[in-house]
Each structure stands twice: as structure tokens, then as C-alpha cells.
């Protein structure tokens, strides 16, 4: 039998036949990967131009950045972000963990409770902000209700208190996002190997000890993942503040995302707005890159083990 000739260059029609395949692979991938690269580069470019109402060519070096960094608006927004970020992330994770632990106790009505803790996630930040602005408004919310009951000296006016207003955002944020944290924690708790728990029971550990010594330690990779996700929520927070406080009173609840919007569309300074957006991205990368590096290191270590 004669040997078939080694296959020549792939015939054209075979390439054409695979065209639909290439299209459905590459069009979405290039759109989604491409717009990330192009848009990031584009906005970064604008941040170095003297653009105001419309993008223009030109080069102003770091001027937009120094300008933004020098504004009171940005400084306060960034300080607020530190408080809000820390408070929101830590408290949401803690509340989420508490909810997950409660639900993990095989209690009755588990499905109903889970739905109750999770439903705020279905609601937009705009709705969340609006509703909490009513509840926290001293003139018509909780304070008014308690005052009307007769406890006239009761004060709960964080919404109009410059020092405390940022915590109203934290409260609404926790209400909105703790169900999400709960869902992820619960999955982690439920995926602990049954044999591990049995072994601990045989070792004579009580339920509390099993929890703190056996189950929770297996959860920390999820805890970190949840905190990173929450932290990037925090850095991007915009709608919630718009609907709840509008950034006020004064600048008390101003956050970087609002500053960007303010520069770009209220003051008509696209260059500075872009610079502020790039600063936001850098903040975000400050969180994501260490996390990514840590994950990468872990994967390498696991692969070697």
C-alpha cells in the first residue's frame, strides 16, 4: 500500500469551513479583552491631555494628576474611601459569616431565611439608597418614629451628621451585600469534608470546638476572596451614595467614583476626571495585584506539592 503524502498546507476550504468557529471564538473574546485594553489606554491618554468639555490632543504631563490630588474634594473622598472601605468590608464579611453560620446549623426555615438575607442583593443600589435615606432621615425615619412614641430626646441623625454620615453608607452597604457574602461562606462551610468532622467528633470535640478549630480554618481562602470582591465593590461605589446622601452633608460622604463623575460631567474637565479615574484604577490594582500574586503563588505551591 502506498503511503499517503504528508498532508500539504491546509486547503483553503477547510479554513473556510472553520470560519464560523473562529468568528464565535474571537469576536466575543476580542471585544471583551480588546475594549479593556483600548479603553484603559484611551482614558489614561486623556488624563495626560488638557481636555475639558471634549477630548483634545496635547500633553500636559502630570498636571491633571497633581491638580486632582491637590483638590480638597479628592482628599476627602479618598479619606472617606478608607473609612468606608474598611468598615464596609470588615462588617459585611462578619455579618455574612454570622448569617452563614446561623443557616449552617440545620435550622428550620432555612430556605426562607436564606431568601430573606439574600433578597437585598436583587435590589439596585438606587433603591437601597433611596429607602435607607428615608429610614435614616431624622425628620421622617426611625428617629421621628421613636420621638413620636414619646422618647423625644432620642437622636439618630447620622445622615445629617458630618462625622457619622459615612456610616450610613456602611449600614446600607451591609444590608445590601451581606447576603452575597453569606452565600459564598455557606457554600464553603458546606463543602467541608464530612470525614473531617467525623474524625473531630471521634476525637471528642464539641460542636463549638469543631466549628472554631476544624471548619472555620478551612474557610479562610473564601474569606479572603469575599473581602477582595467587597473591597472592589467599595472602591467602585457610586449609585448608593448618589441615592442615599448625594455625597453630603457637605463633602462628608464624597467618594472617588463621585469625584470622577463630578469632574467629567458637572465641571466639564475630562482630563482631570480621567486622571481621577486612573487613580481609582490604581487603587483597585493595589488590592487586586497582591491578591492575584498570592493566588498565583498558592497555585504554584499546590502544583508542586
Amino acid at each position, binding site marked *: 500500500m502506498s503511503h499517503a503524502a504528508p498532508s500539504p498546507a491546509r486547503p483553503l476550504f477547510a479554513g473556510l469551513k472553520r470560519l464560523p*468557529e473562529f468568528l*464565535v*471564538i474571537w469576536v*466575543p*473574546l476580542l*471585544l*471583551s*479583552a480588546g*475594549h*479593556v485594553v483600548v*479603553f484603559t489606554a484611551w*482614558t489614561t491618554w*486623556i488624563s495626560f491631555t488638557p481636555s475639558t468639555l471634549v*477630548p483634545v490632543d496635547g500633553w500636559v504631563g502630570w498636571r491633571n494628576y497633581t491638580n486632582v490630588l491637590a483638590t480638597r474634594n479628592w482628599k476627602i473622598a479618598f479619606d472617606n474611601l478608607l473609612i468606608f472601605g474598611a468598615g464596609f468590608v470588615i462588617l459585611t464579611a462578619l455579618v455574612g459569616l*454570622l*448569617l452563614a453560620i*446561623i443557616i449552617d*446549623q440545620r*435550622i428550620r426555615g432555612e*430556605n*426562607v431565611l*436564606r431568601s*430573606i438575607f439574600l*433578597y437585598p442583593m*436583587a*435590589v*439596585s*443600589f*438606587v*433603591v437601597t439608597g433611596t*429607602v*435607607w435615606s*428615608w*429610614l435614616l*432621615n431624622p425628620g*421622617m425615619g*426611625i428617629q*421621628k418614629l421613636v420621638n413620636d412614641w414619646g422618647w423625644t430626646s432620642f437622636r439618630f441623625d447620622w445622615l445629617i451628621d458630618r462625622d457619622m454620615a459615612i456610616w450610613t453608607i456602611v449600614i446600607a452597604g451591609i*444590608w445590601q451585600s451581606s447576603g452575597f457574602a453569606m452565600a*459564598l461562606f455557606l*457554600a464553603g462551610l458546606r463543602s467541608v469534608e464530612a470525614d473531617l468532622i467525623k474524625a473531630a467528633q471521634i476525637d471528642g470535640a464539641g460542636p463549638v470546638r469543631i466549628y472554631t478549630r476544624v471548619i472555620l480554618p478551612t474557610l479562610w481562602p*473564601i474569606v479572603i476572596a469575599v473581602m477582595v470582591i467587597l473591597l*472592589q465593590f467599595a*472602591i*467602585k461605589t*457610586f*449609585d448608593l451614595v*448618589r*441615592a442615599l446622601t448625594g455625597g453630603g452633608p457637605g463633602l462628608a460622604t464624597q467618594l472617588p*467614583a463621585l469625584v*470622577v*463623575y463630578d469632574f*467629567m460631567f458637572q465641571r466639564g474637565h475630562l482630563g482631570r*476626571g480621567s486622571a*481621577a479615574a*486612573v487613580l*481609582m*484604577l490604581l487603587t*483597585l490594582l493595589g488590592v*487586586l495585584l497582591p491578591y492575584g500574586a498570592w493566588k498565583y503563588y498558592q497555585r504554584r505551591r499546590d502544583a508542586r506539592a
Partner: protein
Amino acid sequence: MRDASLSRALLYAVAFLLAFLYLIPLAVVLLNSLRTAEEIVQTSMIGWPRVWAFQNYTAAWADFCIAQTCSGIRPYMLNSALVTLPATLLSTLLGAVAGYAISLWRFKGDTWIFALVTLGVFLPEQMRLIPWTIVLRDVGLTNTLAGLVMIHTVQGLSFTTLFCRNYYIAIPADLMKAAKIDGAGFFRIFYRIVLPLSPPILIVTVIWQFTGIWNEFLYGVTFTTGTQQPVTAALIALSASVADVPQHGVQSAAVVIAALPTLLVYLFGGRYFVRGLTAGAVK
């Protein structure tokens, strides 16, 4: 054993207290949506309706004035639906195919592409506002729903591709090998083997995309104006008009209507969502 039943009782007490706290905002909005504006002004936002003001809903739906247009939130709800449904379906479908390609067909540069797609999940919207403005202008979709569909589809691809990829990566390599030996190609393997395994992750991506796009505000308020705006933007505009003449009853009714689609999606799909989320999200 007394100890155990005591801690059990404590557990239930804490659970129900927390459930109560979580339900307060929902209860307040629902009740207010049935109270008259006068009643709310006289007492507080929190209270039981003295007279049932069902007319709040008709007002909110069809004839309340938002920024000079007195048509209620009906047109804005329609806008949101016309943006959310196509963008959800398109981004889920394309993301599923892309996730399938990236997880089960190795090709040159796939890790780089995937890294960039993942980055797209985290890239702040603020970095994309100006480029999108210019792109919308150049393709002639400024202030149109089609423009929002395009934006949400492209951006949603990051999420859907990531979720589907993380789910499909668990499909055994041997299954793909067997299918290739059987002579199945890219599309046949997708719709005969991969797609039938996909409902759990598709439910997650659909719910995620639907709620995300329905609830989105920044793009809606930036890229559309007037009667082209989605319902989230309309709610903010509504609270601006309400600031002058308090109409909290109608506003509450509008909030309820606006939140209803996503609440229903969660109510019916939440269980699958939680189950599938862990398959796709944390990897």
C-alpha cells in the same frame, strides 16, 4: 441537654431578629406605597396605612410627572426591559461560547486573553465612560437603548465568559477527547455535550446579568436623557421632583414597581443561583 436546647433557642432568636431587621426596608416601602402623602408627612415613613392608597400605584405607573414628562415610570420600565433582556441573552450566549472555547479548546494566547477578560470584570466603569461616549457618538447610538444594549453586552461578556469558563473547566478532558475521536467538531460538541451540562451555570449568568443590567445606573444616567432613560435613572429623577412636593407614597410605589422584576427573579431563581454561584464564581 438543657444547655443544648437553650443555645438552640438563642440561635432561633438571633435568626429571627436578623430576618426581621433585613425585612424592615421592604416592609416600610410596601406599607408606604399604600399610604397617602399627607399621612406620611404627618407621622413618619414608618407606619401602618390608615387608608389604603392603592391609587399610588396607578399614579406611579402611568401619570406621575418625572422631569417634565407626566407618564409615570411605565416608559422607563419598558426601556429597562428593552435593554436588559437582549443584553442579558446576548452576553450569556456569547459568553458561554467564549468560556467553552477558552476552557476546553486550548489555543495560542488563551491565557493572556483570559487574563484580560478577567480584568474586565474589575475595571471601574469610570475608566470606560469617555471611550464609550465617543464610541456611541461615532456609531450613532448616542441616547438610544441600542447603545445601552451594546455597552452591557460587551461589558457583560467579561462576567459571563469568566463564570462559564470556571464551570466548563471542570468538564473532564477525556470527554472532549472521546468526542473528538467520535468526529464531533467545535459546534457539535458545544450543543450536544457542553450545553446540556450547562443549565446550572446559565441560570447563574442569566440572573447575574439580568439583575446587574436592570439595576445599573451610571451608564443609564450618563448615556441617555429624558424618556430614553432606564428606570434606575428615572427613580433618581423622581426623587429630585419629590424633593419639592413630598410624594413619598407614590415614590414608594415606583420603587416597588422598579424593584419587582429583579425581586421576582431572585425569589424563583435564588436557590439555583446560590448553588451555581459557587460553581462559577469562587475558583
